[in-house]
């Protein structure tokens, strides 16, 4: 199979795969009992009455880690094609990627020194 055909297969497979979890859930809708009530349908909060809304803003710390992640994930994007041709590139290729990784490493050390990696 060529790669293009394989991707076509994966697309069809994904659509078919939706049926595996969707079927039992929809089947359960006909089989399972349904007795909703005003107290039963409250949002669960350890048996206490629900206080306030859950759809609120997040802590800034999550975003800080997300930004760090983007840096390293883009790096991975460059790393994989390089790794495949690594043997034929020789020392020059190693030096180029080494320099790239070094810059990122300095970034990580800087973030560490600034206390960005501490979760409080």
């Amino acid at each position, binding site marked *: *199979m060529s*790669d293009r055909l*394989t*991707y076509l*297969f*994966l697309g*069809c*497979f*994904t659509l*078919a*795969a*939706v*049926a*595996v*979890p969707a079927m*039992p*859930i929809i*089947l*359960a809708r006909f*089989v*399972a*009992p*349904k*007795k*909703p009530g005003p107290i*039963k*349908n*409250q*949002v*669960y*909060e350890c048996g206490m009455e629900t206080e306030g*809304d*859950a*759809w609120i803003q*997040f*802590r800034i710390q*999550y975003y800080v*880690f*997300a930004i*760090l*992640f983007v840096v*390293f*994930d883009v790096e*991975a994007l460059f*790393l*994989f094609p390089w*790794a*495949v*041709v*690594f*043997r034929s590139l020789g020392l020059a290729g*190693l030096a180029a990627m080494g320099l790239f*990784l070094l810059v990122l*490493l300095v970034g*990580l050390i800087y973030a*560490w020194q600034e206390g960005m*990696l*501490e*979760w*409080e």
Partner: protein
Amino acid sequence: MIDTLVSIILRAVLILALAPVGMMYLTWLERKVIARIQDRIGPNRVGPYGLLQPLADGIKMLTKEDTIPDGADRFCHFLAPVLVVVPSLILFALLPFGPRWVAAPLTTGLLFFVAVGSVGTLALFAAAWGSRNKFALLGAARSAAQLIAYEVPMVLSLAAVPMVTGSLNLVQIVRAQGNGWFLWTPWGAAGFMLVMTAGLAEVNRTPFDLAEAESEIIGGFHTEYSGMKFAMFYMAEFLSMLALSLLLSILFLGGWQNGGMVGLIALAAKAFLLVFVMIWIRGTWPRFRIDQLMGFAWKVLIPLALADLAAAALWVLMPGWKGSVLSALLLAAVFLGMTQLWLRPVPRLTTHWLEEER
């Protein structure tokens, strides 16, 4: 043309039918093993050795009421359990079970596997957002932060494999291990440990199950789920666990090697052993604390993964024992350096009652 079409449909149906069955028996295995670890017997009433227990569980889940809290996003609430299972099913289409037994033989197999494997967290977030529950959103935010942290060392240490094999195709990677498993090389051993640890975090297994953490946030993202929808989250977790074990056996433990039925059994045995180790870890280790979790990923695993890349480069460029010894030394130095730096006892916060006593 017709032949390939039939074989394609056959492969898809085989995977979609067998994966749920495999998941059902994994739940049975986990319950049995955990029971033995905790000095119990485990399920033994339904069928011989409780072998029909998963079926009974399935029927129970099907007949349980599906409660959706008021104010929830009902569409999101339905969509999340569906979307969480689909990527873990796709993983099985990518995995080869023999030289020719692979549903989707991609040239970029490894990269595609990693990409699909990290989609599940989006579904977890959708589940939490759809439930409109505080505990659920706490769990989902934790799960996102955790995935973000552990994705990086996982991808970095996986990149060491194509450096040596020169291919991302999983079949080619197994073929490259004809002379010896990658586990027995210094970079391979370190890479195996790194991918195993980061992988456990990616599939939300103990000791990294902070997204569920039933003792602190009552089940996390699936607090508001019941019945079949709840079962789907478990299905996704067990399927990802199985897929991770298979990937590890293919990348580092030599896969099927000789091919044929014997090879398939060998691959299954390796994967089964890894699944057993994961269950064993769940039975014995306590859960991480969130700051330990983040610190462990960014301060220990990422530097180690970078060192693993350097070790793989050394191993390739310096054939023979010299390269092996040098890369092993490099990895040991970085590991000791990072863990000793990080584990050095530093009083970080003085607790408030100590402050008042002064």
